[in-house]
């Protein structure tokens, strides 16, 4: 992954939040740089195609607007993903039937088409995306958060509003379904 991650020399999220609360605008920029790309990937994975950046921006604005109420009981990343997920769902509900919301595979297809690199698309990757398409929405969300974002089951449970045990079951069911599809 290419998004910046906190290193030993960089302050963690809690420290940046404290700095932002004390008026350090640069702290907000660092937090955005750290989490914007994973959020964009997650938002796109939920089917949002045209307004990924808008959703990500809205997520950050809402999060920072209510940061005073953030008590740090969960990771900032989990909180951001939860807000983004709710925003995507609200948008999808408000424009149900619109073609703006597409599946993750369609988004990838459209992106690749727009980038004119469809001719060199990896067949293996295409098969894997097709395998993900066979999953249920919950399985897809859990699998994506676990594999591409490396979230723990506890974090995933918080994002998708389920239990830790259920998240684990969803992940293993998804992995089994993908293996069966690829065999």
């Amino acid at each position, binding site marked *: 992954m290419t998004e910046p991650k906190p290193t030993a020399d960089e302050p963690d999220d809690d420290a940046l939040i404290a700095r932002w609360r004390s008026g350090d605008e640069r702290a*907000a920029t660092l937090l955005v740089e750290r989490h914007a790309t994973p959020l*964009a990937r997650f938002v796109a994975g939920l089917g949002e195609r045209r307004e990924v950046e*808008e959703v990500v921006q809205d997520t950050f*604005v809402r999060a920072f607007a209510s940061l005073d109420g953030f008590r740090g009981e969960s990771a900032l990343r989990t909180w951001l993903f939860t807000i983004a997920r709710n925003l995507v769902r609200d948008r999808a509900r408000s424009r149900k039937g619109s073609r703006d919301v597409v599946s*993750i595979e369609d988004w*990838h297809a459209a992106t690749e088409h727009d980038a004119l690199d469809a001719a060199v698309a990896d067949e293996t990757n295409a098969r894997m995306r097709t395998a993900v398409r066979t999953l249920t929405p919950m399985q897809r969300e859990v699998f994506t958060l676990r594999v*591409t974002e*490396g979230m723990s089951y506890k974090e995933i449970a918080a994002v998708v509003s389920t239990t830790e045990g259920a998240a684990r079951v969803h992940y293993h069911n998804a992995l089994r379904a993908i293996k069966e599809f690829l065999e």
Partner: protein
Amino acid sequence: MTECTRDDMRDRLPDLLNERLDAATRAEVARHVASCAECAAELELLRSMRSALAPAPRVDVRRIAAAVAASRGAGAREADVIPLGVRQPSRFDRRLAWRIAAGLVVAALGLGTWFAAQYKPSDPPVTVAKTPPQHTDSATAVPQVASTRPAATSHSSTTTQAPAAPRMLASRGLVMDGGVTDLSDGDVHLLLQSLDSLTAIPDADPAPLSYQLDDDGGAR
């Protein structure tokens, strides 16, 4: 390929992939993967899946950071964030709209029920037509009284419109309201004559009871 029995190791493969493990745990999981073909294959599959799903659309981080800073400068909260295209109604907005709609429906139903209770459809006016008796020697010879609806009225000469007029049962000719005082002298006379000619008129009053007491006070 042998079945892996270390579910705890398999469960940590995504963490190993995303470098979410501390040094000691990472070394332990790596050692297991090196000795377990199934976990090695699964880790490779996860790596491929991650590569296939990882591409993310580019976002303008500086623009987003500027929006956050601007919203803070404006003292923005959730209700007045920087507009991004068309702002979607919040969950609270939708709930309020549904409550207003539900209230209107309830009010409409209440008003409808009230009006229905207030509205009593009046019976079409009953036309009472009295015609002279055609014969008097029958046991049913009572003044013929016919009840007709306005649309069927054809005896205009003897028709009386009567919202307060007595309602008649055409089959029996019984008066439900008013009385013989509404009849003319001739009609009363004919009625009495008809009654005189009737036979087997049941007694209206019960037969009187009589008791004889014995000397000891018992009834017989």
